C-alpha cells in the first residue's frame, strides 16, 4: 500500500490587523448606515471602527486594536439587515450599503445573555466597565442559581474532552479555582478568565512569538494552559508580561499588584509617569505606576507605535532596583561608583 506525501502545504498567512490606523490608508471608501446615521469609511474598516468613528459605543472584551480579532466573546454583536444571525462588529468589515443596528432588541438580548453567562461563571470583579454594562443591559447573572464553589487546583485541567460529570443542580457551574502563583513576577488567576484568547495571541503570533500558552481542553472545560499544564517556570514563558498587558479581566496580574490588592493597599486611581526604559537601545516608553511614592507596576502605552504596549522582562519587571534600599543594594551602588 502506498501513501502519498505530496509535500508541504502552504501555511495560512495571517491577515494584517484591522486597526483603524492601517485602514485609513485604503484608497476606496464604503458608505453604510449605522443606527440611521450614514457613515463613510475606508474599505476594510470594521463595523466596530465605523461605529466608533461616529461615537456609537459598542462594548468589547476580547477585542484589542493591536491583536487579530478572534470574535470569541460575542459582546460586540450587532444586527446587520439581511444577515440570518448577529455579526461580531469587531471583525466584520463594513460593506457598501450595509444597514447596521447596534441597539435592536436582538442585539440587547444577546449582549445581556453574554454578560449573564460570563458573570455567572467567571469572577469579573476586576474587569473594567463590566459592572456598568451589567446595569445598562439589565443582566441578572444570579438567575442561573448560586455560583458553584471553587474546584480544587488541577481538576479543571484534568477534564477529558467529550466527557463531563452530570451537573450539580444546586449550583450554576463556574470556572472558580485557586489562583496559580508559581513565580515571583505574575499571578494567573483563572477564576477570572473569560477565555478571550488575547494572552494566547500576544504570547504567540501577534506579538511575542514565544507560544508558551495555548487554549487547551474543550467546551466549558477549555482553559489557558502551558504545555502539559506545567508551572510557568518550567514552561517556555520568557516573562515579558505582554499577556498581562492585554488581559481584560485581571486574570493575569503583576504579583506586586496582586499582593497589594490582597492587602487592600492598591488604588486604581494612582499617579503614572511616562519615561524611557533604561535597559537597551530600543527605547521603549515605560509608564511607571506609583502608589505612595513607590513604583508598583510598569506598563507601556498600547497606542505607542514602537511598543504597542509590549515590553520585555526587564522593562516590565526590572524596575525594583530603583527603590531598593537594602544594604546589599547600597553596596552595589557603592561599588559601581568606583
Amino acid at each position: 500500500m502506498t501513501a502519498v506525501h505530496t509535500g508541504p502545504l502552504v501555511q495560512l498567512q495571517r491577515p494584517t490587523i484591522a486597526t483603524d490606523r492601517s485602514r485609513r490608508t485604503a484608497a476606496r471608501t464604503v458608505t453604510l448606515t449605522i443606527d440611521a446615521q450614514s457613515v463613510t469609511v475606508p474599505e476594510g474598516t470594521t463595523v466596530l471602527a465605523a461605529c466608533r468613528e461616529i461615537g456609537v459605543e459598542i462594548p468589547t472584551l476580547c477585542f484589542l486594536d493591536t491583536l487579530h480579532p478572534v470574535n470569541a466573546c460575542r459582546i460586540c454583536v450587532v444586527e446587520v439587515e439581511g444577515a440570518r444571525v448577529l455579526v461580531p462588529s469587531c471583525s466584520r468589515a463594513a460593506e457598501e450599503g450595509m444597514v447596521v443596528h447596534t441597539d435592536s432588541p436582538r442585539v440587547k438580548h444577546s449582549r445581556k445573555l453574554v454578560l449573564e453567562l460570563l458573570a455567572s461563571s467567571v469572577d469579573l470583579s476586576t474587569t473594567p466597565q463590566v459592572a456598568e454594562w451589567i446595569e445598562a443591559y439589565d443582566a441578572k447573572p444570579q438567575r442561573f442559581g448560586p455560583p458553584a464553589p471553587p474546584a480544587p487546583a488541577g481538576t479543571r485541567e484534568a477534564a477529558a474532552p467529550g466527557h463531563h460529570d452530570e451537573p450539580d443542580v444546586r449550583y450554576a457551574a463556574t470556572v472558580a479555582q485557586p489562583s496559580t502563583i508559581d513565580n515571583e513576577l505574575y499571578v494567573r488567576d483563572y477564576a477570572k478568565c473569560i477565555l478571550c484568547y488575547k494572552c494566547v495571541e500576544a504570547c504567540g503570533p501577534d506579538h511575542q512569538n514565544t507560544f508558551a500558552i495555548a487554549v487547551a481542553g474543550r467546551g466549558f472545560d477549555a482553559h489557558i494552559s502551558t504545555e502539559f499544564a506545567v508551572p510557568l517556570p518550567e514552561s517556555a514563558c520568557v516573562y515579558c508580561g505582554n499577556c498581562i498587558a492585554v488581559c481584560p479581566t485581571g486574570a493575569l496580574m503583576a504579583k506586586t499588584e496582586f499582593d497589594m490588592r490582597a492587602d487592600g493597599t492598591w488604588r486604581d486611581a494612582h499617579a503614572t509617569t511616562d519615561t524611557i526604559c533604561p535597559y537597551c537601545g530600543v527605547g521603549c516608553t515605560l509608564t511607571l505606576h506609583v502608589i505612595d511614592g513607590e513604583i508598583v507596576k510598569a506598563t507601556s502605552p498600547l497606542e505607542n507605535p514602537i511598543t504597542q504596549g509590549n515590553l520585555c522582562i526587564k522593562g516590565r519587571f526590572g524596575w525594583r532596583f530603583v527603590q531598593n534600599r537594602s544594604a546589599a543594594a547600597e553596596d552595589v551602588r557603592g561599588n559601581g561608583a568606583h
Partner: protein
Amino acid sequence: MDLHLRHAAPTDEERAAVDALLGAPSSAWDGGARGNPLDGHVSYVGGRTTRENRHMLLSALRALQARVGWVSETGIEYVCARLGVPPADAWGVATFYALLSTTPRAPRVLHVCDDIACRCKGAAELIEQIERTLGPAHAHAPNGEHVSVDPNGTVWMRSPCLGMCDHAPAAFVQQAGVEAVESLVAEMTVEKARGLASGAVIPNEQRESRNVGSLRTVASTSPDSSTALGMTTQIPQRGQPSLRLLRRVGVVDPESIAAYGASGGFDALRRAIEIGAERVIDEVIASKLMGRGGAAFPTGKKWEAVAKQVARPHYLICNADESEPGTFKDRVLLDGDPFAIVEAMTIAGFATACERGFVYIRGEYPLGAARMQHAIDQSRAQGFLGQDILGTGITFEIEIRRGAGAYICGEETAIFNSIEGYRGEPRNKPPFPAQAGLFGLPTVVNNVETLANIPLIVLEGGAPYASIGTALSTGPKLFCVSGNVTKPGVYEVPFGATLREMLEMAGGVAHGRALQAILLGGAAGVFVGPNELDIPLTFEGARAANATLGSGVIVAFDDTVDMTQILLRIASFFRDESCGQCVPCRVGTVRQEEALHRIALRKPIGGVAREIALLDEVGLAMKDASICGLGQTAYAAIESAIHRVGVLNSK
C-alpha cells in the same frame, strides 16, 4: 520561534510510531540526534520547511495514540520537534480530541454509544450492565497523579453517536499496539463487552498500517468476499433496481476496482473530462443539487465560486466527519461504494481547478477509512487519480485525514483548522471557504452524499437529474431511519416522500407500541409529533413545516422512551461537543443542561415555566450570537420538544 522542549527523547515506541508516519528525521533540526544539547532549546534556523508540515500534527498524535495507547509528554515533544510546533500549541490540540488520551490508559478501550438512537435500543440499560460487569467508566486522572495501567487491560467509556444507529446499541473498540486495531461493534451486548475485556479477538478487525497512520483492511486479503462486504450488506433496499446512490452498496465488491469499472465506474470521470470543467459546473448548477450535509447550499454555486477564484491552489475537501447523532448514510457510502467517492472527488477537483483533495473521515469509521485508502491506491495505480489522469495531463491527488473524536470538526471551517493541525475551532464567516478556506485558499467542502450524486449528474445530465424529486428538491435522497422502528437503515427515495412513508418503509414502530415523537435532522434538528407525519421530506416541505431535513436523520421514539432523558442526552451532547470558543455556546450549553436537569429532578428555580423561559432566552442568544452552526442549533431540538411536542408538560 524557539522551541522549548523539556524532555531529551521520546521512548523507542513513540519514535517508531511518529517516524513510521513522517519518515526518519533528517537532522537535529527536525528532531534527530544531536551532539551538543543547548540548554534544552533547539533553534529552528530555517525551520520553515519543518513548520510547513504542521498539517501532519493530528495524524502524528493519532499515530502515538494507536501505538502507545495514550499521548505522552515525550511523544508530543517529539512530534513538536518533527513539525516545528510549539509544545503548548500541540497540547492544546491533543486535549481537544476525545479519542486521544493525554493520561496513561489501558491499551484496549471500548467506547459504548450512549446516544439517542442507541438509547431507543437499550443503550442506557446496557451501560448499566457494563458498569456492573467491568466497573466504572474510565476517567482522566488529574495531572501529575500517578496512574497504574494494566498493559493488557481494557477500559470502557461512554461515547456520543457512533453512526451505527442501524445496528444499535453500538460500540467502537480500539486496541493500541504495534498492530493497532480499531472496529465498530454492531449490536453490542454485555457478553460481547465481557469477551472484549478479556482479550477476545476484535471482530471485523482493521489494522493500523505502519506507514501512514491510515488503515488497511485485513478483510481484503480474505478469499471470502462476503466478509469483505462487511456490515453494509444489510441495507434494507439492497439490490433494488430503483436505487441510484446505493445501487452498488452490498452488491458490488467495494474492494475491487474491476468490479467498480464493470458496474459503470469511472464512466462519469471520462465524460467529465470530455465535456470540460465549465460544462461540468453548468450541469451541476442545472441539476439544482443541494448539499446533503445539513446546510443545503446549492453545490453548483459553491463550485462556480471556487472555480473563478484567481488565488491558487484551490483545495477540495470531502467532509466525511459524519457525527450528527442519528446519521450513518455517509458510513454506508464509504464502506459500500468507496470508488464512487474517489471518482466524484476527482470530478469535483477537475471542475473547480483543485489539484489536491482531502477526505476527512471521522475517527470512529475505520472500515470506511480503510476502504477509501484502498480505493485511492487502486485508482491511482490504474491511472484514475494522481498525475496525468487517463493520459489527459490532469492532476488530482487525494489524501485521507482522520478525525479523533470531535463533532465540531464536521463544521465546514473547523475542518480546515483540524486538517491544518490546529484546534478544531470554527472560523468566523465571512470570509467564506470559497474565498479563504483551507490554508487560507479557495476551498470546496462537500459532504460524502453530495459527492455521490455527482457521477449521476455528469452521466445523466443536469436537467434530467433535476426532474427527479420535486421542483426545489431534486434528485435521490438518503434517509437514516433509526430508533424504535422495526427495520432501521439507510433508505434511498426520490425527494418527495412524506415522513409517514419513510417510517412505513422502515417497518414502523413495533406491534402494540405507539409513536411518541420523531427527531428530524439529528441533534441539531427538530422534534415533530406523531400528528405531523404528512410533512413532505423535501427542503421546501420541511421549511414550510418549520422543520429541517438536516443530514437526513429520522429517529423514531415510541411510548417506551422517556423523552426527558432524551432531552438531557441532547443537552449533554452539545455541552460535550462545544469547542469552547465563543461565550454563548460555551456557557450557554452548560446553562441549558443545568436547567433541564433541574426540571427533570423537580428542583426548578421558580417553577418549570420560569425554567422554560430561561431556556428560551439562553437558546435565542446561542442561536443569534454563536460563531457557528453548533451553537446556533444547540437549542433547536430541545425547543421543539418542549414547545411542539410538549415533552415537559407533565413536569
